[in-house]
């Protein structure tokens, strides 16, 4: 029976192999484009095996490289890591297929470079998921930022460069100035870089400084897009849609909130937080981000910009869940990672499909085009239902647990925040299918939709429904994580 | 009384020379005068070392066969021998540079030189600017 360590290797190394092999195959595009989904399937297989192992309570551990005494690159799969790893690898399959359809539909230039860095980004995300200690986490967090830069600045025109510069300065700046010293503070305080199930800071940090250390951490994780450091996400929308689909709905932002949750649970520890109340300020900040970005999303006319702001608000759901420092809320937050990933990737796929098929990117132009692209808008409808949290979709589970957690932790005003934002979600997401199906068409456009785009959309859309019924293994994993 | 002040007297000269040398190096704009200042500065160090070596009543540190004569300490003298050679090397290098600068720039006044350098620097940046401007669409 293959040992656990090789599963970790399978999951992590398959995107790396795709990264190394793709440039060699730039001659024949078909083989090169096949690599992506193939790599995705292999790494998902590994991820599923790891998840089963973690479900049985085993903790796969693998030390790769010993840099110096006390510093090493080592992998250790936490329940949270297993979930994120599975989400990233499974959705990579669909995103790889989708990007082939999109890139060919749009005749984009230098696709080989695109696919190589695409695979590298997934590799970095998976390494973050399975990282064993804070330093490995930081190393691959940086590698993820640097491997996504060529994707964001793909078009190489003036706009892409400016967006790339903003993207890099915020993400690298925040992680170098805040996250690195925070990690080193933990290293100095606890004497080692490792994390443990219910927090390492218990005895080593006197409680008054806990909020300040948490603040350095929170503002260090630029990818979790809290208010002052969220500007990079809308700016990164200038990238081609497969990039914003996988990266800004799944890999990059999820790595951010994954790191946030990991810090909150495995470095600070839930009961240490609830005891010292160190994260109350984070609850206020997350709720504020949540509401403000939902309101901004309403005024955004461009589809991708609206989805970008909706992503920022959904990320704050997860940060809020973690900050509530209650077992139930953390479970809700982790489940929200899964459901939001599935839902949001569908919405981004649809936005890309509309752009490729009908060359439209403004919501106001969508009136009456429901009939010409029925499947696409139906998928959008189901996806947004899941994000809003309507029962037959997976999103309802995570929102339910989040609200339960809010009640359990005694912060009742958070319940109010959740309900207001659900209403806002409904408003700005439902506007698109409503315009498409009910309003009158002002001009008709010949729609040419490549099949390679519709397949992934349908799959991810069904995923949101299947997840509603198949939420049981994820829920078991989060309960292992919490108690 | 004089001998005690004598020791002090030497150091006054040393540090006076040193400050004159430094002033010339910093104050003067002419490159040649800087080299002269530098040499004065280094000579003052030689004097400093020799005054350290002087032992009262000691003769020059050259062996003479009258036994138990007191010699002043030979070590500073030897060190200064090397320091002199170093001083010569520095001055020679400095002067040859001044010559080359004079033949390239036509003057050894610091202001004219830095003026010409500034002109060259901006010219270099300008020529490349329109090169890259041509390629920006």
């Amino acid at each position: 029976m293959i040992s656990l360590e090789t599963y970790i290797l399978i999951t992590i190394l398959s995107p790396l192999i795709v990264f190394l092999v793709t440039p060699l195959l730039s001659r024949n595009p078909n083989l090169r484009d096949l690599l992506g989904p193939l790599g995705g399937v292999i790494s998902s297989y590994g991820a599923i095996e790891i998840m089963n192992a973690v479900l049985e309570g085993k903790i796969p551990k693998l030390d790769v490289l010993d840099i110096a005494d006390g510093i090493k690159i080592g992998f250790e799969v936490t329940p949270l890591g297993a979930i994120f790893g599975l989400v990233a690898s499974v959705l990579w399959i669909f995103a790889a297929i989708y990007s082939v359809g999109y890139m060919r539909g749009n005749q984009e230039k230098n696709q080989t470079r695109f696919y190589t860095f695409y695979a590298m980004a997934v590799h970095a995300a998976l390494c973050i998921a399975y990282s064993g200690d804070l330093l490995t986490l930081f190393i691959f967090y940086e590698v993820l930022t640097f491997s996504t830069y060529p994707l964001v600045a793909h078009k190489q025109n003036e706009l892409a460069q400016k967006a790339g510069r903003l993207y890099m300065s915020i993400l690298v700046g925040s992680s170098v100035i805040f996250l690195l010293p925070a990690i080193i503070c933990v290293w100095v305080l606890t004497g080692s870089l490792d994390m443990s199930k219910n927090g390492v800071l218990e005895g080593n940090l006197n409680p008054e400084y806990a909020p300040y250390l948490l603040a350095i951490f929170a503002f260090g994780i630029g990818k979790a897009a809290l208010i002052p450091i969220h500007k990079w996400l809308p700016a990164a929308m200038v990238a081609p849609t497969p990039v914003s689909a996988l990266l800004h709905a799944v890999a990059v932002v999820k790595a951010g909130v994954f790191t946030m949750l990991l810090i909150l649970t495995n470095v600070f520890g839930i009961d240490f937080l609830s005891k010292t109340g160190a994260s109350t300020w984070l609850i206020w900040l997350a709720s504020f981000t949540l509401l403000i970005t939902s309101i901004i999303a309403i005024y955004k006319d461009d589809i991708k910009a609206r989805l970008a702001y909706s992503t920022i608000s959904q990320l704050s759901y997860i940060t809020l869940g973690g900050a509530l420092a209650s077992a139930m809320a953390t479970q809700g937050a982790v489940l929200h990672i899964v459901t939001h990933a599935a839902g949001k990737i569908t919405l981004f796929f649809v936005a890309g499909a509309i752009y490729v098929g009908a060359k439209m990117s403004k919501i106001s132009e969508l009136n009456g085009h429901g009939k010409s692209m029925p499947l696409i808008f139906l998928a959008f409808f189901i996806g947004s239902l899941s994000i809003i949290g309507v029962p037959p979709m997976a999103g309802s589970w995570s929102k339910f647990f989040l609200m339960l957690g809010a009640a359990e932790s005694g912060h009742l005003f958070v319940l109010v925040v959740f309900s207001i934002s659900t209403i806002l979600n409904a408003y700005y997401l439902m506007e698109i299918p409503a315009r498409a199906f009910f309003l009158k068409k002002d001009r008709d456009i010949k729609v040419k939709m490549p099949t390679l785009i519709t397949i992934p959309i349908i799959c991810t859309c069904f995923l949101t429904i299947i997840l509603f019924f198949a939420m049981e293994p994820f829920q078991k994993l989060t309960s292992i994580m919490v108690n | 009384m004089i001998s005690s002040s004598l020791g002090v007297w030497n150091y006054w000269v040393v540090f006076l020379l040193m400050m004159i040398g430094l002033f010339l190096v910093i104050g003067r704009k002419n490159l040649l005068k800087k080299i002269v200042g530098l040499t004065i500065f280094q000579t003052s160090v030689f004097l400093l070392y020799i005054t350290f070596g002087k032992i009262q009543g000691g003769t020059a540190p050259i062996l003479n066969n009258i036994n138990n004569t007191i010699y002043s300490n030979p070590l500073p003298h030897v060190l200064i021998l090397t320091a002199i050679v170093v001083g010569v090397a520095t001055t020679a290098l400095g002067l040859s540079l001044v010559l080359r600068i004079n033949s390239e720039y036509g003057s050894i006044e610091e202001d004219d030189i830095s003026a010409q350098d500034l002109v060259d620097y901006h010219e270099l940046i300008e020529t490349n600017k329109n090169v890259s401007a041509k390629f920006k669409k």
Partner: protein
Amino acid sequence: MTDIIIKNLPILVVICPLMMSLIVVLIPYNFLSWVITLSTTFITFIFSLLLYQEVYLHTSISYALGNWAPPLGIEYVIDKVSIVPIIIISLISFITTIFSSKIMPAEINSSSISKVYSLWLLAIAGLIGLVTTGDAFNLFVFLEISSLASVALVAMGGQKDKQGLVAAYNYLVLGAVGATLYVIGVGLLYGITGTLNLADLSKRIAEINDNKALIAGFGFMIIGIMVKAAVFPLHIWLPRAYAYAPSAVSVLLAATATKASLYILARILFSVFDISDTLIINTLQYVILPLSILAMFAGTIMAIFEKDIKRLLAHSSIAQIGYITLAFAIGTKASVAAGFIHLFNHALIKGALFMAITSMSFYINKRITINNLSGLGREMPITFVCFVICSLSLAGIPLTAGFISKLYIIKASISADGIWIAMLILASSALSVVYLWKMIEALWFHEGPKNLLIKENSLVYIPLLIITFLNIYFGLDASLVVNSSFEASEQLLGARK
């Protein structure tokens, strides 16, 4: 034969390049002089590796010259502290000599090539001697040998661009003033203690408590060395000297010259004087610490606004020197070790960056400024990839050597509860990303002259590949560098704090 070599290793490392520099000057054929220089630097590197082994066999080797017993005669001291700069200098000089084969003839007319290589070996011998000697005045002699040879080398740049002469002139005058200040300091200390041997000096200084001449001597010595090490306010000579020197020379000087003087600064501060007496603590806290913080920010900001790339890299060197002096100024064992780690890593990083830029200007045969960088990335892929990796290493991005040194400096400053110092370090290193990114963006994204038919010459990019590989290797497996630095700081600070 081998035991003679082993016994005389400390001196062999110095006289091997020194003697060969005298021989090389007589060789008329340019290629032959390059071959001899290359083999000499290679042998010196092998000797330094053997020395590394010897030092870790018995903790410190003292080698008396000309059968005068140590306190009187000149004593060469090799211990775990001085082996670090020796390895740095010999390694970098070997790689740079490979690099100089194609680059040197392009900038210096063929009649004076063998003279340049003799000066080249002389400068290397001076630097290695500076680091091995245990005698204060002998240190001055080597200081002068290395700086005069470097001035002459920089002046060679005057053949291509006349500003090289003025840069050499400034370097000479400032270097001579610095060295003379150092001699005055040594003289004052000799006047009080009566000895020139550094180890003996530190014993005698410990006995004298706060004698005025001692403080004056210390002051002169430190200022003199700070001029040579280009610590912030005294660094005016460095940008122009590195910018207008011939390409290969600027690579050598950028990576090794200041490193030797920084090591001497550490040796004077910590081993000659005692870290626990108030004089040193005050100097560290109220002089060197603020100066290095100023250096970090001034260097980086100057680099951001600089147009000429070689000057930009020189300004960034000043900022990096600020990191090293800051690490020394914090004064704990961990921070001095972090200083040594960055001493090693910065030599690799800055050497690689200068190599990349100078090979680019060699290919397009023009002086590189931010404007004519545009589009070159696609024309010369190997050089560009190496340049990107090494600038990531400068910014301290993980998996590179720069990250390791940044990690340890911040850890040292935080554990010396200087969280503000850590924040300042990170802010300035984040600022350094600005000018690095400006260059990378210009190289890759901007449109430039197409199909320049640049054929990347193997002799030029092989050393670049070697040094980039070292940058990554010491990022992945830094245990060698980290352990020897901690051993060095252990020995340097000894039983003290």
